[in-house]
């Protein structure tokens, strides 16, 4: 701010702007500055949350197993309700910093709901190990959805997408035998759906939703390729990468360009190693990967100009 004042004074002395304009700019910038009390509240909120988590962790390590189920439920329940109530109160604040705090508190409350149902299903209901997964993930998903609908912030969509993965995978885990090797494909499917829903302005914030979808698209096929010991999931990943690159140009969306390029960098070397490691050897496969990645990097640099536009 001092730099701005100095510059304004220098510009006024040079006859570039008038005194009125200096005052107007100063007033405008002062109004745009973040409220210090809100910032302090946010920092204190995060600090308090972190301390509470550490304290809970220490408490759990020492005394958790000595508590009756009802006491465990009461403890997690009270904390979760406190997070929910505090988040609801903070959400209505006019300050962006306090609303970020609300987002964090509601994120914690989703974890609290998952923990509460974990204790309920294992301690009180004595559910089977498979059923426990559904007992935890379904309520967490519902709460994440309910909290995301009115408050579409970064952490809310993270909780929602994470819970969506968990609920689908835990539902599949009920099948006998559990298709663990295929879980990567489910992750890819949900990731692709996330990108599509972000494109359709359904899943918000858009940038975060694209990012979450891309992470799943990067992870899923790699997991499936390893689990199934086959190359086709990697081809699917590469195909998705190409689709992301094409979409990045038509939508002029930088996140998709970065994601598509990242996917090419992840899947292309894996495919080259899959097919050529045994025939050409590791050094040649590495060299081939390097050459192809340089070509992709040049292509991405060219695409970047297309995405950012003139």
């Amino acid at each position, binding site marked *: 701010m001092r730099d701005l004042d100095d510059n304004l004074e220098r510009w006024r002395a040079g006859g570039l702007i008038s005194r009125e304009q200096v005052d107007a700019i100063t007033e405008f910038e002062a109004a745009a500055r973040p409220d210090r009390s809100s910032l302090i509240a946010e920092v204190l909120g995060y600090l308090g949350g972190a301390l509470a988590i550490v304290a809970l962790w220490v408490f759990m390590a020492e005394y958790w197993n000595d508590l009756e189920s009802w006491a465990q439920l009461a403890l997690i329940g009270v904390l979760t309700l406190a997070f929910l109530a505090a988040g609801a109160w903070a959400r209505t604040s006019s300050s962006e910093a306090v609303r970020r705090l609300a987002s964090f508190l509601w994120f914690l409350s989703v974890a609290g709901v998952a923990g509460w149902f974990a204790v309920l299903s294992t301690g009180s209901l004595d559910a089977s190990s498979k059923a426990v997964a559904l007992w935890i993930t379904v309520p967490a998903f519902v709460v994440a959805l309910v909290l995301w609908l009115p408050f579409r912030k970064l952490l809310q969509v993270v909780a929602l997408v994470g819970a969506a993965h968990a609920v*689908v995978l835990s539902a*599949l885990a009920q*099948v*006998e*035998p559990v*298709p*663990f*090797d*295929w879980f990567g*494909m*489910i992750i*890819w*499917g*949900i990731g*692709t*759906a996330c990108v*599509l*829903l972000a*494109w*359709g*302005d*359904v899943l918000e914030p858009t940038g975060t939703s694209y990012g979450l979808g891309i992470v799943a698209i990067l992870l899923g096929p790699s997991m499936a390729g390893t*689990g*199934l*010991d086959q190359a086709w999931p990697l081809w699917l990943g590469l195909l998705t990468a190409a689709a992301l690159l094409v979409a990045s140009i038509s939508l002029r969306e930088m996140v998709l360009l970065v994601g598509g390029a990242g996917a090419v960098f992840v899947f292309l070397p894996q495919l080259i190693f899959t097919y050529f490691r045994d025939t050409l050897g590791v050094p040649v496969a590495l060299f081939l990967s390097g050459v192809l990645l340089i070509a992709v990097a040049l292509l991405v640099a060219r695409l970047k100009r297309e995405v950012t536009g003139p």
Partner: protein
Amino acid sequence: MNRTVLAVSASVVVILAVLVAVLVFGVIPLPDYPSLADHPDASIPGTVAFITDDNPPCLGMVPAGGGPTTELRCGVVEVGTLGWTSEGLIITIDFSSMTSRYLLIDPASGEVVDAIAADVDEPKPLAWESQSTRADGAVLITDGGRGTTAVKVHVPNEEPTTILSADGPQDYSFDVATWSPDGRWVLVVDSEGRILVVGESGTPAARLLAEGASRWMNAAWYIPGYPGVDIGG
């Protein structure tokens, strides 16, 4: 069709397509075996002891020819290796104290009748590897991967012969195979904790003796009159 509807429709299609693919191609049923409990075979002699997959693990016992499983005792069995003495006592090993010791358990009462200090170094009389070699040197080998698994008999200087093979999910396998004391039967524990009995040459084919056995832990077979495990002491 506006963009929102298109995005939702495409998402639903992608998720459904992946789910259908996983359920069709990813859920491969486990191989099924006829049950000896339902149709006992009196030609299979002796008794089989095994450790269950419960928490804490229990010591179970079942007639080798098929029948109901008897739970002998729970909680005291610390490890998975099992054997029988020539006198018909079940031997297991207790690692819970500072000094490892063999526990001799009466199969009639389930009580520990003796405890002998164990030398846990070589030789390991209770290790299932020692029970997978027959008196004539024929060794049982479990083999396979990626959805196909097999039990083979390897006679020295001969090609291994397959006596049992099965297709199933990628993680399905035959984990442990041991000979019956008379060498005419093979006891197999699969990755689902199922105990199977198969003839020495693969005939009669595998039949299900018991379920719920602990994985990677052998089941031990006793036939009166055949030598048991020698633990010294």
